[in-house]
């Protein structure tokens, strides 16, 4: 007979100590959000204005990051590109997790037939090579930013559902849930007032991680020419467009590449930190 650990009192809540790295990450995210919101306001030039006569030039006092093949100011395009870098992934992460939370709650708590049905679909989707499916489907259906967002959202729902379901399964056998059942509290109340608040924090951590992953995948699709429409200032798209000017203006490639990494790293750090805090 297993005897659980004899009582440990946690009287003092762990003081909130945010490491510097996380603050830095939050700063970067804030900066990117600012760019996305203010866009044209802070960009030095219009991201669409072409100067075909100038063509691609290396960085100069007028164009801090140089110009691309069509003479467009690279820095402005990068600032503007923050929009597509953030909006899509938010939809993917939040959308996928909203559906996943619902499915995971039902699947984990109700068990039985509902669970088997949902998990069978999930297992099927998990067996697919996700990024590849995204490329092929978006490519065949005919590109487009929102098509990509939709496809990624659907693909992310599977692993997210599994995550929510495991979290729910962890809570379900605990005495406070059983006590609620014994008291006759309704299933809906238990699901949303007892289980959800306890799996919520860890879901939040995963949302951050999902966001980073969606950002990277979305940029990847644009890199292959499948995401945003041509001409849109988008970090991934810029990597697609500017590959040929690697020698004349490498900044046009390195800057958007760097932004992708920075934003993804920041979100991953925040997500990991939240995970550490909530997973106990």
């Amino acid at each position: 007979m297993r005897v659980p650990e004899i009582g440990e009192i946690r009287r003092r809540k762990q003081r909130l100590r945010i490491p510097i790295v996380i603050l830095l990450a939050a700063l970067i995210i804030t900066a990117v959000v600012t760019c996305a919101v203010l866009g044209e306001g802070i960009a030095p030039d219009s991201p669409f204005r072409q100067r075909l006569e100038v063509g691609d030039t290396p960085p100069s006092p007028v164009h801090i990051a140089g110009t691309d093949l069509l003479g467009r100011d690279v820095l402005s395009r990068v600032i503007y590109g923050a929009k597509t870098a953030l909006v899509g992934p938010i939809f993917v992460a939040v959308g996928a997790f909203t559906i996943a939370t619902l499915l995971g709650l039902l699947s984990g708590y109700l068990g039985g037939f509902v669970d088997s049905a949902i998990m069978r679909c999930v297992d099927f989707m998990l067996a697919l090579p996700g990024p590849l499916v995204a490329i092929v489907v978006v490519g065949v259906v005919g590109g487009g930013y929102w098509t990509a967002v939709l496809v990624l959202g659907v693909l992310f729902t599977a692993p997210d559902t599994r995550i929510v379901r495991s979290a729910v399964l962890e809570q379900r056998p605990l005495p406070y849930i059983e006590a609620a059942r014994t008291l006759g509290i309704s299933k809906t109340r238990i699901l949303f007032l007892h289980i959800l608040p306890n799996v919520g924090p860890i879901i939040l951590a995963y949302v951050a991680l999902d966001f980073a992953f969606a950002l990277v995948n979305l940029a990847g699709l644009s890199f292959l020419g499948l995401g945003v429409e041509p001409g849109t200032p988008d970090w991934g798209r810029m990597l697609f467009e500017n590959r040929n000017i690697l020698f004349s203006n490498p900044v046009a490639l390195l800057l958007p590449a760097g932004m992708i990494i920075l934003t993804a790293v920041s979100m991953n750090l925040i997500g990991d930190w939240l995970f550490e805090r909530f997973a106990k």
Partner: protein
Amino acid sequence: MTGSSLVLFVMRRLALAIPLLLMISFGVFALIHIAPGDPVHSLLGTRAPDPSTLAAIRARYHLDDPLLLQYGKWLSQVMRGDLGVSIQGNRAVTGTIADRLGVTIFLTLMSTVLVLGPGILLGAIAAFRCGTRLDRVVVALGVFGASSPAFVTGIFLLYVFGVLLNWFPIYGPGRGFLDRAWHLALPALALAISVMAIVVKITRAAMIEELARDYVTFARARGLSWRRILLAYVLRNSLIPLVTAAGLIVVGIVAGAVYVEVTFSLPGLGALTVDAIQKRDIPTIQGTTLLFSAFVVLVNLAVDVIYTMIDPRIRFGRVGS
């Protein structure tokens, strides 16, 4: 596990994999129908849309048959090794794939070696030196790696080592083993970095957990040497989470290969797929997607079998306490 029960187990998992493959193949088949526009026009390619050509296409691809029948005929074709004909230049898809297969295999193998070797080693070192500066550096590198998709890393590597330092070529697959290895070094590295991050993370987490386990403490208390503890206790037990994640790793490498081949202009299957997508060459897309997907499914199956073999608890089921 006895030989016969192992065979039985493999058979059972294969049986589960088959419906999966069928469903995937149906999805691949249906691509032609989810493409915008009339399937006939998608299959036209560069030819003129005159009635006789259209009729010929209709006949060849059984487009007038009900959907399931179309699928059946397509599937039987595939089973016979006929993946259709590319719309560009009318070449058999199987031929094109055969041409490109070599590069992709070389690339993915090289990456896998890079991922597993240094990946597991770094994870192990970080676990042993948990909390020290070295560990923090490894963890930081891991986060960067995980956040850097292969195409982004590829661009950075290309610029630094290809353009600036000129140590490696920046495009082409190379000829001959060593030359090919030299040409594929940067792409393989780019591909490996993002996937290695996962391996390092999992290995490190698994080992840290193992080192904290009671049986390791008990082994230490009995005075066993670190060598013995490492080999018999820590490493073996750490393998399990890693094997579980192998599926994830394979998918990462396969998807990453696509990006990397585009970045470095390598004539591999991934670049072929992207090229076919841009040209709306559905038969080629179907061919490569089917190949990739089947590969992933089979690797997952192999992983399942390996997992069962190394963890005896799965075979026997646990004794309740």
